[in-house]
C-alpha cells in the first residue's frame, strides 16, 4: 500500500463516532453544554437522562434547567434528582480500583454512570411558542444545560409588565423577568423558613410592582421591613420603599415614637377609636385572644345594645349595670366577664383611644384611592399579634367595602374600575387559619376578591397552617427553603407536576434562593433573587449622586472592618 492509499483511509473512515453529534441545533450564541441523552421515564414521573462521558456529576444541581432538543421541539425541564447507577450489580459487590485514574476514567460514564431525573415543564414549538408539556421527547434525545438564550426565550425581556426579579441558578447572567400584571391578578404567596429572605424578596417584588404600576400596594408592615431603612444581617443599612419611590409611597405608623427613633419620614399616624371596632373584628381574633363562641355572641349582643360605644360602655360598666345587662341581654356571666378582660387588653395600645374617630384612617384610605402605595408600620406593636390582626382586619374591611362599591358602580366599565390593589400581610396563617379563614375578610379576599381587583400577597413561614381553600386560590407561589414536610406538601398542593419539585424545594440554599411556580410563570423556576443594594436602587432610577456617596461610605465602612467582604 502506498502513502496516498494510506491517507485515503481517513476518508473511508471518517472521524465521526467519538465526537459528539453536531447535528442537533444549538441555540443562538453560546454553545450549549451537552449533559447526556434521554434513556427513559414518563411525563408524570419525569425523564431519566443518562449522563454523558465527562459531564462532572458534582457540578449538576437540582433546580437547574435543561433543554432537551427533540427533532422539531425543544423541551424545557428541571433537574429534580440525581442518582448514581451501575450497569451491573456485581460492580457494587467488588468495585474496581477507582483510585487508579485510568480505571476511574474508563468506568465512569460506562459501567457506572450518573442519571439526571428531569421533570419536563414546557415545550417550545418550532415557531417559538411555549406550551405546557403533554408528551415526552423520544429515546436518546440529546439533553443540554439551558443557555441564557434558552431562558430568555421563555421569560422574555424586561418591558412595561416584565420585571427582572433574579437569575436562574447556574445562569448568573441571565434574567428571570416576571410578568407582574399576571402576578398581581391572583393572590401571591411568599413562603420560607425564617431568615431565608422572604421580606427582602417581597420588597423586590413590590418595588417592581410600584415601578411598573402593576398595582397599588397596602402593606401591613409588622416588623418595619418595608417603608424605611432596615439593617441587614451584616449590619448594612438597606433602603426601604419610600426612600426609593419617594412620594409614590406613603408611610403611616401606629407607633410614632418608634418611627421617629428610626428617623422614618412618616406621612401619617393611625389611631383607632374603640368606637370603630366591631364584633366582626373580634371574631377574627378568636384564636389570638382565645375567644369562645359565646364570648363572640356576647360581643354581638353588646353591640346591638349599645351601638358603636359598646366596648367603652362594657369596660366602664359598674357592677349594677352589669347585673342589669345580664338580665336584659340573656348573656352568660362568665362569658361577659371573660370578654371584658379580653377587651381590656386593647386599652394597653396607645394607638387605640376612646374618643370620637379622627380622620387618620380616612387619610390612609384616601391615599390608596389616590393610587399611592401605603406602608403601615406597626413599630413596637408588630409583636402584639392582636394589634396587628385587629388593625389589618379593620382597615382591610373598610377598603374592601370601598372596592366593592366602586366596582359595582363601574358596571363593568374598565376605565371606571379602581386600580388593582395588592394587600401584603406577614404571618399570614394567623389570618388564614382554617378555623377563621371562612369568617374573615382576608379569607373572603383570597377566595373571591379577584373579581373586585383586590388580591393578597401573603408572606409566611408556615404555609401548612393556612386554610386549604385559601391556599388553592394562591395563584403564584414563591417559596424559599422549607424543611417541614407538611409545609412543603402545602406549598406544592395543586401545582401541576409539583411532586417532582419536592427535592428541589427541600434543597434550596438557606438564603436568597427561591422557586417561583404557578400563575405568573410559564414554568417553575428556581431563582437567586437580585441583591437588594445600590445596583438595584440605581436600576430603579435612584439618584446617582446620592448613590455614589453611599458607595463611598460603604467602601469606607468596609475598610473600617465593619461587616464581611461582599459584592456591591
Amino acid at each position, binding site marked *: 500500500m502506498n*502513502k496516498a492509499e494510506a491517507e485515503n483511509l481517513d476518508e473511508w*473512515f471518517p472521524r465521526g*463516532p467519538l465526537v459528539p453529534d453536531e447535528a442537533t441545533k444549538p441555540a443562538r450564541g453560546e454553545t450549549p453544554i451537552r449533559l447526556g441523552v434521554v434513556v427513559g421515564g414518563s411525563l408524570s414521573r419525569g425523564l431519566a437522562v443518562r449522563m454523558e462521558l465527562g459531564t462532572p456529576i458534582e457540578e449538576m444541581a437540582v433546580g437547574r434547567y435543561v433543554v432537551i432538543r427533540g427533532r422539531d421541539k425543544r423541551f424545557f425541564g428541571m433537574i429534580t434528582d440525581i442518582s448514581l447507577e451501575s450497569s*451491573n450489580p*456485581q*460492580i457494587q459487590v467488588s468495585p474496581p480500583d477507582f483510585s487508579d485514574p485510568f480505571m476511574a*476514567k474508563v468506568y465512569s460514564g*460506562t*459501567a457506572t454512570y450518573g442519571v439526571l431525573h428531569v421533570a419536563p415543564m414546557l415545550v417550545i414549538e418550532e415557531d417559538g411558542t411555549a406550551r405546557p408539556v403533554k408528551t415526552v421527547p423520544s429515546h436518546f434525545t440529546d439533553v443540554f444545560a439551558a443557555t441564557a438564550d434558552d431562558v430568555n426565550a421563555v421569560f422574555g425581556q424586561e418591558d412595561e409588565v416584565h420585571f427582572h426579579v433574579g437569575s436562574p441558578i447556574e445562569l448568573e447572567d441571565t434574567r428571570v423577568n416576571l410578568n407582574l400584571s399576571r402576578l398581581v391578578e391572583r393572590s401571591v404567596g411568599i413562603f420560607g423558613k425564617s431568615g431565608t429572605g422572604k421580606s427582602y424578596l417581597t420588597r423586590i417584588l413590590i418595588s417592581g410592582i410600584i415601578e411598573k404600576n402593576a398595582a397599588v400596594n397596602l402593606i401591613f408592615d409588622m416588623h418595619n421591613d418595608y417603608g424605611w431603612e432596615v439593617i441587614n444581617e451584616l449590619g448594612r443599612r438597606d433602603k426601604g420603599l419610600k426612600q426609593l419611590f419617594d412620594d409614590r409611597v406613603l408611610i403611616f405608623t401606629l407607633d410614632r415614637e418608634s418611627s421617629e427613633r428610626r428617623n422614618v419620614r412618616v406621612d401619617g399616624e393611625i389611631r383607632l377609636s374603640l368606637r370603630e371596632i366591631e364584633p366582626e373584628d373580634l371574631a377574627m381574633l378568636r384564636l389570638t385572644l382565645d375567644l369562645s363562641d359565646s364570648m363572640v355572641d356576647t360581643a354581638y349582643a353588646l353591640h346591638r345594645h349599645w351601638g358603636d360605644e359598646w366596648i367603652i360602655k362594657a369596660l366602664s360598666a359598674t357592677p349594677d349595670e352589669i347585673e342589669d345587662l345580664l338580665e336584659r341581654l340573656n348573656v352568660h356571666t362568665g362569658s361577659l366577664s371573660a370578654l371584658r378582660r379580653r377587651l381590656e387588653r386593647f386599652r394597653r395600645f396607645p394607638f387605640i383611644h376612646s374618643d370620637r374617630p379622627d380622620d387618620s384612617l380616612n387619610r390612609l384610605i384616601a391615599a390608596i384611592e389616590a393610587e399611592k402605595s401605603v406602608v403601615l408600620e406597626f413599630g413596637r406593636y408588630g409583636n402584639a399579634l392582636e394589634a396587628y390582626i385587629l388593625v389589618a382586619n379593620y382597615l382591610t374591611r373598610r377598603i374592601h367595602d370601598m372596592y366593592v362599591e366602586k366596582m359595582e358602580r363601574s358596571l363593568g366599565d374598565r376605565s371606571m374600575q379602581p386600580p388593582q390593589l395588592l394587600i401584603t400581610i406577614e404571618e399570614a396563617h394567623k389570618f388564614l387559619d382554617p378555623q377563621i379563614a371562612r369568617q374573615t375578610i382576608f379569607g373572603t379576599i383570597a377566595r373571591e376578591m379577584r373579581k373586585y381587583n383586590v388580591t393578597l400577597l401573603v408572606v409566611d413561614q408556615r404555609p401548612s397552617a393556612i386554610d386549604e381553600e385559601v391556599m388553592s386560590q394562591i395563584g403564584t407561589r414563591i417559596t424559599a427553603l422549607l424543611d417541614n414536610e407538611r409545609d412543603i406538601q402545602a406549598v406544592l398542593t395543586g401545582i401541576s407536576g409539583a411532586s417532582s419539585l419536592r427535592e428541589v424545594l427541600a434543597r434550596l440554599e438557606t438564603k436568597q434562593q427561591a422557586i417561583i411556580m404557578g400563575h405568573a410563570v410559564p414554568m417553575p423556576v428556581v431563582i437567586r433573587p437580585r441583591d437588594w443594594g445600590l445596583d438595584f436602587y440605581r436600576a430603579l432610577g435612584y439618584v446617582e449622586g446620592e448613590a455614589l456617596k453611599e458607595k463611598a461610605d460603604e467602601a469606607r465602612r468596609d475598610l473600617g472592618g465593619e461587616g464581611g467582604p461582599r459584592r456591591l
Partner: protein
Amino acid sequence: MGEQSQPIAYVLRGSTTGFVCGTRVNRLGATAFGRFVRVTVAEGGETVLGLIYGIRIDDDPLVRQLVLAEDVPESTVNDQRVNRMVPVEISVLNVGYRDGRGLHHSLPPRPPLSLHLVFMCDDAEVIAFTRELSFFRLVLNAPDVPSEDLLAAALGVAADVRESDARMQFLIDAGRELARLLNHDPRRLENILRLIKPEEVSHE
C-alpha cells in the same frame, strides 16, 4: 515503508474467520502476537485485515535428530533454524476488510486463498483501522483464541503507533468501549483493563 512493504508470509489455509500463513524464520521480521496484517484476496478484490494470534514452530525429522545428537556445531544449528523443512505457521484472526466502499469491521465475504501474500499493516493503516472500535466484538467472541490477551496486545500496538499525546485518550476510549461490551462480565472486563492499562499515567 521499507521492511513493512515486503510480504512476510504466504497463506497456507484459510476461512472467512481467519487464516494460517507460513513463512521462513528469517522472514518473520516484525511479526508478533497482536499485530495487524493484511492480505489482498484477489487483484482488485477485498483486502482482509487480521490480527496475529499464534506463531507456531513445528518440528521436522531433522530437528528431531539434531535434538538427540551430541556436539552439534553452532553453524549447523543456525542453518537448521533458518533453512527448515517446514514453515513457521502464523495464525491470524480476521477482524475486518477493506473494499471499494471503505473499511469494514466485520468478517470478509471471502477467505484469502493459498499462497496469497501477507503483509504487515503499516502505522497509518493501523491508526485508520482502530479509529473505530467495533472490531472488538469479533475478537471477544472468537472461539479458540486467547481473546483477552489478543485484544490487549492489539490495543498496545494501536496505542504505540499513535502520537504520544493521543495514546492515553485512545486507551481510555478503548476501555470505555470494552466497559460497554463486557457489561455482563465485569471480571473479564477488569482483566483486559488491567492488561491495557498504561504503565505510567501520562503527565498531563
